[in-house]
């Protein structure tokens, strides 16, 4: 379950949507000097109170009884800690939440990304009016994409138009190596 890192990115974004976020910032950054990989998803959603935050940081958690929203969090925390990284959650009620996971890049158990280009494409095309910003920087490649900027460029042409999907798919594939 959730054996690829980009699945965690998707999961964190879904958590942000569940928290009614309108602006979501996603960062995937490699720091070669520090041998570190960092994932961060920040949102302006509902945020969490102290008790919920405590269980997100340390427990096995879902804010919704009988549902599994949020269950990806402890898995991500476990992977980060196992790979000599950190797991940090900051959250303020009414302001938003920021989840950061870091990993030692050379750690032998670091999960692969799976298909990060497809994951970013999924997120951009289904943003559905929300502002989603993606920052990616790894091994000399990098880009920033922002659904507000894309929508400005597209005018009344929707993000799910086949030509736009093709464009974004190729744009992302060009900038994200197939296998990390």
């Amino acid at each position: 379950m959730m054996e690829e890192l980009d699945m965690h990115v998707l999961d964190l974004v879904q958590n942000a949507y569940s928290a009614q976020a309108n602006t979501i910032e996603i960062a995937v950054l490699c720091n070669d000097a520090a041998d570190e990989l960092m994932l961060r998803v920040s949102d302006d959603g509902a945020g969490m109170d102290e008790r919920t935050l405590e269980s997100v940081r340390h427990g096995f958690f879902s804010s919704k009884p009988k549902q599994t929203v949020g269950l990806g969090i402890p898995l991500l925390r476990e992977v980060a800690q196992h790979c000599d990284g950190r797991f940090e959650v900051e959250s303020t009620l009414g302001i938003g939440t920021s989840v950061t996971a870091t990993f030692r890049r050379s750690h032998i158990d670091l999960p692969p990304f799976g298909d990060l280009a497809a994951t970013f494409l999924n997120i951009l095309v289904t943003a559905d009016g929300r502002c989603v910003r993606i920052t990616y920087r790894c091994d000399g490649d990098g880009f920033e994409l922002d659904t507000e900027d894309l929508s400005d460029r597209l005018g009344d042409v929707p993000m799910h138009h086949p030509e736009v999907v093709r464009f974004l798919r190729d744009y992302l594939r060009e900038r994200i190596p197939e296998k990390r």
Partner: protein
Amino acid sequence: MKLEDLRKIRERASKELSLRKGDARVKVIVGMGTSGIAAGARDVMATFLDEIATRNLDDVLVTQTGERGLASSEPVVEVHIEGEPTVVYGLMTADRVRQVVVEHIVNGNPVSDYVIEVRT
């Protein structure tokens, strides 16, 4: 490949769009809660987008939602076609998505083998 290229797409596509009325004919919703993602929703979504891109389906909107409460059938996909009952597919894979796109979305015949629910 530069973002400036989007301008050309905009010019081409908005001409076609102005000939049609607004809303998408087909709406596809992929369940992207934790259990959906763990069961393969990423590849299901990616395959839908790939099919839209390669088959040039300009009247299909793909979107996502959180938990659907059908964890044992994940990944779950809902297909809404204007004027027809909503069809819910379960245990979807990339291959099944390709089949649903051709048989249901393009040709109008739901793929009954993968249907777990029909809502009128």
